[in-house]
């Protein structure tokens, strides 16, 4: 079991490679929460409530870690705000649009599916030769949808972490 402690935090900005190895678990979950609310300053209590932490000190712990990574900042009112957006690990597989988060593969999936639909509608009859011609596109669409689902399932969430934690506990 790996515990990332405060004592290991470097004072300077960490490189993305380093962050990739350091950012994980609940800290990632907190950062994820900040990314979905990038424009608003967020307090410790809000983080605790939103992510169902047992105490505000737990939230504070992860926030300090993120400050240490140079990813968030604390203002004079004691609220926190995203300072730096890093696309590392699972974060790189998602697109953040306002409060919405979705796998970037979803865009590819929709584009390829629309393309297949367009070609299918262009041909008034469906013959074997048309299916063969469309086969690469259909395969691409299937792969993109599969990736979309896979990535979506890997989205950091409180439940996932709990489940994984339980599994680890049993082991």
């Amino acid at each position, binding site marked *: *079991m*790996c*515990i*990332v402690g405060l004592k290991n935090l470097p004072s300077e900005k960490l490189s993305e490679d380093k962050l990739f*190895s350091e*950012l*994980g*678990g*609940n*800290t*990632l979950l907190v950062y994820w929460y900040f990314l979905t609310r990038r424009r608003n300053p967020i307090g410790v209590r809000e983080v605790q409530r939103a992510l169902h*932490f*047992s105490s505000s000190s*737990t939230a504070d712990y992860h926030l300090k870690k993120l400050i240490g990574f140079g990813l968030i900042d604390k203002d004079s009112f004691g609220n926190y705000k995203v300072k730096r957006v890093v696309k590392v*690990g*699972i974060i*790189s*597989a998602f697109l953040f649009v306002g409060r919405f988060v979705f796998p970037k*593969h979803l865009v*590819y999936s929709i*584009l*390829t599916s629309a*393309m*297949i639909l367009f*070609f299918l509608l*262009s*041909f*008034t*009859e469906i*013959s074997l*030769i*048309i299916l063969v*011609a*469309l*086969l*690469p*596109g*259909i*395969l*691409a*669409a299937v*792969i*993109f949808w*599969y*990736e979309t689902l*896979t*990535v979506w399932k*890997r989205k*950091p969430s409180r439940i996932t*972490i709990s489940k*994984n*934690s339980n599994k*680890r506990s049993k082991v």
Partner: protein
Amino acid sequence: MKQQLYVSVLTCLLLAFLVPGAKTQSFQSPDTKIQGIVTEIRYNYEGAPLISTYKLTALISVLINETILKPETFTRERNQLVGVSYNYSGPPTCKVNDVVEVYGLWVPVTDVPASSTIRVDDYVTGSYVDVVPPPPSSPPPPSEENDLDIASVDTQSEYSNGSIQYQFAMNLWYNWINTQGTQVIFFAYYSEVYNSPIITFIGQHYVTMDGTEVFIGNTLKLMEVYNDTNKNNVPEVNEIGYFFLVNSSVGFTVTPIQKIMLGEVAHYRWGVKYHIIDGFLIAENGTGNVRVIVEHMAFSYDYYIQNNVSYLKTGFDIGEIVSIESDETYLTLEGLSLSLLYATITITPKNYTVLVNGQPYNSATAFPSLLATNYSEILLENQKIYEFIFGENYTLYKNSIVESYKSFSVASAINTVSSNARVPLSGLIEQLENVLKDFFPKISEMQANIDLDYTASPFVYRVYYPTWEGYRIKHDPTYIAYINPQGIPKIPTSLPLELLITATIIGLIALIGAVWELQKTKRLPRPPLAIS
């Protein structure tokens, strides 16, 4: 003055004595017969000093098409020019571009081969330069390679028209309608070069009330001139004197298809017209033909749908025969009648029956061979799908008098059509079949054996006009189809290759991208766990 005259006469006599060609001619036999096209005629030898002994009225240049008879010394071949020295007292009757037959004496000039000519004059017994009348059917035979670009017919549009070319000078004018689940195609031959007889075809594709696909076509096969000698008002086989073939090579104009709303009903109207056309009255027994000039010949159509019935009103306008070019001065059209012979083609996956006067009919086996009818129909498993309305009046324009007469129709057995009628048309009919075979998959997925020969038609019929005598006739028979507007058949389209290639290329690029992304996603580790 007198002295000058003496000198002139003396000079002429001296020249006549010295020039061998100017010697008195003896009668000779022609030895060369060719056929070819006149490329040039020069008349400038008329009035030359040697006129009294060797009177050359014209030098005709002929491009050889065929050498029928030749002596050993005749060296010219097909597609080479040969001069014809024409020495009769009058000018030749041929003109440039006429096809002529030349029968004369080959006079080789060994020193100057280009000066060798075929002599045609009084001293070459029986020699002549005759214009060969164009045959009634001289289009090129259908080539194995079909040059008609059927793909140019825009079957996706509601209506369209245009021209598609067959070889280099033979064309088909088409009109296309695609509305309320029915498709109508009309073809008419025309050419600026070849004297092909006028042949039109109109076909309709639709779905019947029970959802069965049907294609029904009508071809005007032949016009027959008959003399109703027994006065029974029926064009019997032995009464048919001539086949009336009208050429399509001059003055072809079209009325482009247009959509006109009459009330709530859309009418699609179009037409074609051949102006001042020459035609032939070909003796039924094959004994010869007579060239005639016809004022015009026009076909007009009006197609519309009301409820589940489509109407095709056809308008025939056969102009007056204004000239008969015949040596047979006794030939007259007085008392003669006109009959139009049609053959139908029906394509459907189910069995169908033709009813004439309510009784099943088949032209292949029909007896009696001619059955008068005002009304015929096609049944598909006891369901009426098509009607032929006959017996309407026609208008005869006799000089300034306009008269109306009743037209008649007979369902005709195949054996009532003279086998001589098939010869001049077979090439064009075969070509039309090829066109339809190429075109048919654009409107239907039915497997069709397209045979436009009247011998394959289950329903051959004649519409005839007892009072004709070569005057102008206008007639508007109607065809009715019972359609199912809901059963719109899907018009198959040919695969657009560009679209297919584009789809494949884009698909491949997307696939490469997808596989690349898949590998990247696999490399993504799960986020390291933390204990909260």
